[in-house]
């Protein structure tokens, strides 16, 4: 068999790739026959509910479980993060931390059991204010979180006798003194939660020493080691399954401590266990994204090109006291001279975890707002300022891509027609309108992925891959790639994913999955096809390289009469199925996938200056992603990202009680999210010149969820002429900013 050269079909030959293909499991999901972890019930299972700590900062002194144990149906009370008899008190640093689990025959008995637990707490002073850096410093709640400086080589080097910091400070001040325009601003974005529709959790049982877990996870292939480490067993004794997941967004990579608790209770009771978080627990401990606040000073030349950037930002990632990564400041833009510093604030909150495009949305929202304020100060067109500053970005090779994308987005939002200088638009009643921009970047390298492909002698095709479908259409992509490669209809292939017993495939995080499964499935299918071509070539007495697979048959190129049906071809395999396992390792050079995308988003908003209410009129997203695999699901991915951006820009925020530290809006009646009527018109445009297609597959999950916040914030500023500094831009914040501006 000749060595297989991996490649994608040419555009005009592709039947499925790049087309609009509906999700294969769409009907199951729509009708409820798809079984999510939450839907799975095992015979004789116990339901677990847990007591979440009601205090943000305390010591748990003791737990009296006697009343809980007496509740009819309660089988076991299990300490999670609470002291047993004679144990030392346990310090708790976040509202909602799970203290004690109650396993019972019914959910009601478990909940009643939890309500009967008597816990003694020693309250400790809590601190949750992440906005006020000085207050945090006064309470010794800060940590250095990195920083750095880079100055243009032309400025020279400090002399041997110079104090380096003093010299740098002098140079920075000189740069500001030389700047035609100087903008100083303060911006921020609050902590939000992942708010997964399906809360974190599992249904699991032991079969002897083997742990079988149905887990709501983004990491089917590699949560077994988390269980194994915690339970002192080996990873090969853990099977993890997840056919469907109701949202993860970066928060579902591990078993989590409540998952370990479930396994421990299952072991103790000898019963299957179902343990999923309640809604408030999901918001409190299921995952959150760190906040970011920044003091910025920038200096620009007469053309509005930023020459010097000086910033200090802070925020909280919970009690571990980190903040948004300093490496991305200012976001995408990279002036020749910059100095940046970050401070983490230690608050009594659950530590943050990865949230769709970790660090990027916050960095974008609190730095590209400063670039827009430069436009406002110059009384210039924001689009012009963004375009001019493309000469200094962190990936200079992308500047023409951004310029083209901005041009396309401007056309789609009708920038020319709707643009006015900041605060200078027409007023209709109390309503003003405005336009805003954000630009973003992402890597999107394909993750590692292996695929076992089986071709049966009767023509049946089935694949096995330990990946997972987050709802984004991974299962469909797998089927498309196989069917496209083998020349079969999409329903002729059976795709099996969602089990750790299948060949390894990487976690779905960082926009890595479509690339991963495209790699592994295309490789496996091309390998299989080469072997079948060899068999058919022998039979038809033609060279194998003259064969092609299409329309359910293998035929000689240019001789359609010389062909064999797929089924006939497969009968040549013999009596055993033909099996191929492909292996793709992240980072391997490949013609099938690559990385690094650019994108821009524009928002057009209306602001009611009497009520502070912001309404999205229209949002435009222009995005490149290399080779578009499934046009329909890719589009959905971007629509969803735009809606998430609107959520974070206008609605979502974790609200901590300033006195007790409690996360007081942890239920959906007060954790505000946009409704359908709040999204306005959403326009998605794929930026896909032939050069993009040639790059192969690049992940799309994160990038469109990045720059919408900046675009909306800038549009509100353009509408009102007033910067509302902190996202979400709630009516209260908009009115406060308008009132402050009036003086």
């Amino acid at each position, binding site marked *: 068999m000749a060595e297989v050269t991996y490649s994608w079909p040419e555009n005009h030959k592709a039947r499925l790739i790049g087309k609009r293909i509906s999700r294969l499991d769409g009907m199951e999901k729509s009708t409820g026959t798809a079984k999510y972890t939450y839907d799975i019930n095992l015979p004789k299972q116990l339901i677990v509910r847990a007591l979440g700590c009601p205090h943000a900062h305390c010591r748990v002194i003791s737990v009296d479980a006697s009343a809980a144990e007496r509740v009819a149906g309660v089988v076991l009370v299990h300490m999670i993060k609470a002291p047993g008899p004679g144990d030392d008190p346990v310090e708790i640093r976040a509202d909602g931390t799970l203290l004690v689990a109650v396993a019972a025959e*019914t*959910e*009601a008995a478990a*909940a*009643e059991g939890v*309500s009967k637990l008597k816990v003694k707490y020693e309250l400790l002073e809590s601190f949750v204010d992440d906005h006020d850096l000085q207050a945090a410093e006064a309470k010794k709640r800060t940590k250095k979180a990195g920083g750095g400086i880079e100055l243009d080589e032309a400025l020279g080097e400090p002399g041997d006798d110079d104090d380096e910091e003093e010299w740098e400070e002098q140079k920075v001040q000189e740069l500001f003194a030389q700047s035609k325009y100087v903008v100083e601003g303060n911006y921020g974005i609050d902590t939000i939660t992942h708010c997964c529709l399906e809360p974190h959790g599992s249904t699991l049982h032991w079969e002897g020493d083997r742990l079988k877990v149905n887990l709501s996870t983004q990491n089917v292939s590699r949560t077994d080691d988390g269980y194994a480490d915690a339970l002192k067993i080996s990873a090969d004794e853990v099977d993890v399954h997840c056919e469907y997941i109701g949202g993860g967004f970066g928060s579902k990579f591990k078993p989590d401590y409540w998952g370990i608790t479930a396994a421990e209770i299952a072991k103790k009771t000898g019963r299957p266990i179902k343990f999923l978080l309640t809604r*408030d627990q999901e918001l409190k401990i299921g995952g959150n994204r760190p906040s970011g606040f920044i003091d910025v000073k920038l200096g620009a030349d007469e053309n509005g090109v930023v020459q010097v950037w000086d910033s200090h930002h802070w925020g909280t990632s919970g009690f571990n006291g980190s903040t948004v990564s300093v490496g991305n400041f200012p976001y995408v833009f990279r002036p020749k001279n910059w100095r940046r510093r970050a401070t983490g604030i230690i608050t009594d909150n659950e530590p943050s975890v990865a949230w769709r495009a970790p660090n990027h949305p916050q960095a974008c929202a609190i730095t590209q707002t400063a670039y827009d304020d430069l436009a406002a100060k110059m009384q210039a*067109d924001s*689009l*012009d300022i963004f*375009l001019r500053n493309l000469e200094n970005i962190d990936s200079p090779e992308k500047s023409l891509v951004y310029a083209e994308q901005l*041009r396309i987005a*401007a056309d789609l939002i009708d*920038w*020319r*027609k*709707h*643009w*006015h*200088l900041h605060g*200078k*638009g*027409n007023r*209709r*009643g*109390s*309503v003003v*309108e405005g336009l805003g921009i954000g630009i973003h970047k992402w890597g999107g390298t394909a993750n590692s992925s292996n695929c076992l492909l089986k071709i049966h002698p009767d023509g049946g095709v089935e694949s096995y891959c330990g990946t997972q479908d987050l709802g984004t259409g991974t299962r469909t992509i797998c089927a498309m790639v196989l069917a496209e490669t083998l020349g079969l209809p999409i329903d002729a292939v059976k795709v099996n994913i969602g089990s750790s017993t299948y060949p390894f495939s990487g976690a779905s995080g960082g926009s890595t999955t479509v690339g991963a499964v495209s790699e592994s499935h295309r490789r496996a299918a091309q390998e299989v096809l080469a072997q079948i071509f060899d068999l058919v070539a022998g039979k038809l007495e033609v060279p194998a390289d003259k064969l092609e697979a299409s329309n359910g048959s293998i035929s000689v190129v240019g001789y359609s009469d010389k062909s064999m049906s797929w089924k006939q071809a497969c009968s040549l395999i013999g009596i055993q199925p033909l099996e191929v396992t492909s292996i793709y390792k992240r980072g391997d050079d490949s013609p099938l996938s690559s990385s690094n995308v650019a994108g821009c988003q524009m928002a057009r908003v*209306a602001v*009611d200056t*009497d*009520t*502070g*209410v912001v*309404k999205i009129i229209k949002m435009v997203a222009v995005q490149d992603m290399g080779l578009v695999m499934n046009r329909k699901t890719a589009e959905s991915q971007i629509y969803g990202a735009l809606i998430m951006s609107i959520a974070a820009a206008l*609605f979502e925020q974790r*609200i*901590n*009680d*300033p*006195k*007790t530290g*409690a996360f*007081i*809006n942890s*239920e959906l*009646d*007060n954790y*505000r*999210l*946009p*409704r*359908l*009527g*709040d999204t306005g018109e959403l326009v998605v445009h794929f930026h896909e010149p032939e050069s993009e297609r040639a790059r192969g597959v690049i992940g799309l999950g994160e990038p469109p969820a990045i720059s919408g916040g900046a675009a909306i914030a800038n549009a509100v500023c353009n509408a009102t002429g007033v910067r509302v500094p902190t996202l979400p831009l*709630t*009516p*209260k914040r908009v*009115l*406060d900013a308008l009132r402050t501006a009036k003086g």
Partner: protein
Amino acid sequence: MKNFEYAQPTTESEAVALLTEPKKETAILAGGTDLVGLMKRMVVTADRVVNICEIKSLQQIERDDSGSVWIGAAVCLDEFLDDKNTDEFPSAKQVIQGISSIQLQSQGTLVGELMRRPNCWYFREGHGLLADSGRMVNEGDNRYHAILGNRGPARFVNASRLAPSLITLGAQVRIIGPGKDEEQILDLASLYRTPAADSELENVLQPGQLVTHVIIPAHGDRLSAAYEVRHGEGPDQPLAAAAVSMDVVSGKVQNASIVLGQVAPEPWIASAAARSLCGKVVNEETAAIAGIEALAGAMPLSQNEYKIQLAQVAVKRAVLKAAGYDTGGLDSPMLNEPSASPSLETHIA
């Protein structure tokens, strides 16, 4: 949620009997859109839940001989919207349309909406209606709390979105129980109260009592409208709201009624604001004055001063809307007119 008995009476008297059994905490279930969430959070821990939706006498919208419209406690919001008998109450319909959640409209009942428990996060976290005599609210986050009627310990705002409009329409409620044949008709406004002690609720119902009907008198040509300032579309609690009903004779207002929502522990009757309109022609100025009058006694808490402006705007816009004028806000039809933005040079490469 703890275990509970479930009862499904088919007559009013059965319902009262089920609700009055000694030593049993009971809860009334209609649409369940509020109750079930509160039970799941163990804020309500009833021993018995009584579903009233199978009681035939509560399932109708009917007009009596006097022209009043009776709406049974099992009638859903969308049934109210669709019924011709309710066409003369536009303000109530506007509010239901503003809820804009098909699930809430088709599952939630009109009476259930009137009885919705406060959305105060301290209450819903299990700290009680008064949350330590108001201390938690005062020291905590009170951005959505009361700016009026908050001088006692209660700081929450009444959760009903429909109550302001129904009160301006002169609605009453029929209440039965706790005695076997006890029945009374009460003004809707009198159903609500501001609790002064932990033992009190935000309404005057006694254990074993049940609101069976809302009765709205014939409204004739009287104008009415409601305006809610909402952060976003749909089912979330508005930030401030107002409803107005008024007669306009020879271009001048007579007999106005203005009630505010989301600003006080009970629907807030703004009598002075209503009086300020009487004898006046409705215009931007008189509507704005009504708004200012309505909030004259406001006492904001540490974080909710902005609600004063929102409530003023709500009153102003409700008055303008009732009189058929454009409100000038985001829902104004003016927004859909072609833009006359100044044409400026752009710098697109």
